[in-house]
């Protein structure tokens, strides 16, 4: 069923679009926006650019519903992965000089909205949707044969989009399975799985999102940025967008965890909570400092790993 262009958007967002870009749906701005300078060869103002991603478990591609061996440190180290989705924002290619050139994202009314994109490596084997999305697509200024040697992006949904009524936002911000609550906003990363599936069958999930968000309750939006934003900015060097792919490694998040055990009374796996013991080994893998606070003892700081472990350039 086709989706009407604007119906269902948050009123504020809809107004913003009218003000900022009229009713242009954005798609046609990507490649062929040619303006010919007088007396010169016509040259497009922009050119298309994309960044490929792929979900990985070690050397293997992520396949929804597959059980993988050797995940984590436990004796029972089999892990069945059932969901693998994430949001990125502000993707950019990086010049030799270090200058970041942001992509203007194709507005496809599905996976990409403004500067935010949802990547989706699962195909509906359990909690997710049937379709997948493994590339960020957009355009960059066409300023000659500039070589790019890196890529940068931010993991997560920007604050201004994160905590609004998600059902009134445009896709992909209205995907119900990626929404936490109005207070917490969106899940920036959703990995669902089961440790030791044929044995103890322990639910073990990694949900990354902002925490410490001050509002009147779980169903109210925070007025100001959350205490722990949990939006790591990631840059990878040695990346040629024309041939390389960014690997997104769920096994690396879990490499110091026992996926077949979960501390009773805490979320199954790590759901970013500052009192969740499983997050001590997982959150720093994103390159994020993690403050563990059980409410009884002095808070403990676990510094983020440098560099982060979640993303890496796939071997060619």
């Amino acid at each position, binding site marked *: 069923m086709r989706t009407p262009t604007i*119906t269902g958007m948050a009123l504020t967002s809809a107004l913003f679009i009218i003000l900022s870009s009229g009713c242009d749906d954005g798609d046609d701005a990507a490649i062929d926006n040619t303006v010919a300078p007088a007396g010169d060869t016509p040259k497009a103002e922009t050119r298309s650019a994309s960044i490929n991603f792929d979900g990985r478990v070690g050397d293997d591609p992520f396949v929804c519903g597959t059980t993988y061996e050797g995940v984590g440190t436990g004796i029972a180290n089999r892990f069945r992965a059932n969901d693998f989705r994430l949001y990125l924002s502000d993707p950019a290619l990086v010049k030799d000089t270090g200058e970041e050139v942001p992509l203007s994202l194709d507005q496809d009314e599905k996976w990409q909205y403004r500067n935010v994109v949802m990547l989706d490596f699962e195909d509906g084997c359990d909690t997710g949707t049937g379709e997948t999305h493994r590339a960020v697509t957009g355009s960059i200024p066409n300023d000659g044969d500039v070589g790019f040697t890196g890529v940068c992006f931010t993991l997560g949904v920007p604050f201004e989009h994160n905590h609004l009524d998600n059902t009134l936002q445009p896709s992909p911000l209205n995907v119900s399975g990626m*929404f936490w*609550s109005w207070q917490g906003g969106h899940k920036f990363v959703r990995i*669902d799985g089961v440790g030791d599936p044929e044995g103890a069958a322990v639910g073990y999930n990694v949900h990354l999102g902002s925490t410490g968000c001050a509002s009147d309750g779980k169903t109210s939006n925070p007025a100001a940025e959350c205490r722990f934003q949990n939006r790591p900015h990631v840059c990878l060097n040695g990346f040629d967008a024309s041939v390389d792919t960014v690997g997104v490694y769920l096994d690396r998040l879990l490499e110091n965890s026992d996926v077949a055990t979960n501390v009773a009374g805490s979320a199954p796996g790590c759901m970013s909570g500052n009192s969740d013991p499983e997050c001590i080994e997982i959150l720093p893998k994103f390159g994020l400092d993690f403050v563990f606070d059980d409410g009884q003892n002095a808070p403990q700081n676990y510094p983020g790993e440098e560099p982060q472990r979640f993303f890496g350039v796939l071997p060619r």
Partner: protein
Amino acid sequence: MARNASRAGRPAHSSGLHLVWGALLLSMLSGCGGGDGSAAADDPSPPQAATAAAPQANPGTETDPTQQDPGLVPATAWEWDLPSGFPMPRVPQTNPMTVEGVELGRNLFYDRRLSLNSDLSCAHCHQPAKAFTDGLPKAIGITANELHARNSMALANVAYNSTFNWANPNTRSLESQALGVLFNETPVELGWSDREDEILARLSNDPVYTDLFDRAYPGQTDPVTTDHVIKALASFQRTMVSGTSPYDKANGGDVLAMSESATRGRELFFSERLECFHCHGGFNLSQSVDHEGVAFDQSQFNNNGLYNINGTGAYPADNTGIWEFTGKDDDMGRFRAPSLRNIELTAPYMHDGSIATLESAVDHYMRGGRLINDGPLAGDGAQSPFKSSLISGFDLTGQEREDLLNFFRSLTDWEFVCDPAFSDPFGNLAPHPDCS
């Protein structure tokens, strides 16, 4: 038999804000060449019905069609009056919402003549006093000795379901759901199979109905069709929107609408300690939703550890969830997480009504699955290999458990339950006693 068939449907009592909203949306749609939404009110005539525009095919028509056409009163487009934060329902283009269609649907929904033996209406299993459920563990159709395998589902906010029934990935619209209820044979529900002409004739022979059908589907020589019956039933049910519970009012800023206990319960419900909201989150307290603006199929089915027969993960043979459709091991016992709205009034719970009270339902999730010690269904659901990875159990203090229960009670929307627009026009089914 008291009836009030002349009621003009649900008046669109839009607040000023909603009017502004509607106007803006309309202007945006038209300004942008608007996609498919603008087609909604264009052509309500289904292709198979004869229309006044083709008089030669109907030589017996009494009225001269050239006289009839100018006097034709088109059906009135429905105006949505949605609660704050609710998205626009997705309405099939083949069944645009009209005031007249909704009114027809309400009459059909409550009319016992819609069953073969004239005993039961749709509302028999979906009674207003029980938030449109029947209070039974499993539904019973017109063949009274034949139990349905599953529990009658509540109807609040069905306009937003991504799929219908407890575990049918193929029932994608209210129209197809209604068709099933009319024609199902195992078990029989309303008994239309092979007898539709007889049942439709009851309606054609009642001038009240010919008038209702004529106004809902104007200009057609014989508007009393199965297709129009299911479309009208679907239209009526789409209007059954519940979003004015104390929980909603508290979210809207009236913090006193919920008790302190219920508010604490809300925080527990949306916590990573309990994980309830992963399946029952969002505006409809169900993640398995669809509406305008959604670009994906968001249907979702989960195994919540009710059964684990002999440790194999199996469910009772007549209730295997979507495994019945897919045959995939992992799909055993996976059912749709329904909306929790008005849950206080919709006992008993679960797809087979096997949990009698709200308290027992909370205890089920606290344990992370159900232990059945004896009998043919014995097994520990908490240990099911197919259980959702999000259901791992939790501990609650006595006060916390009461808080959670009070949160569930705060989802009871009395304005919805008592709304006269959803009441029985024949007066057979009384509203909830607290409605008076």
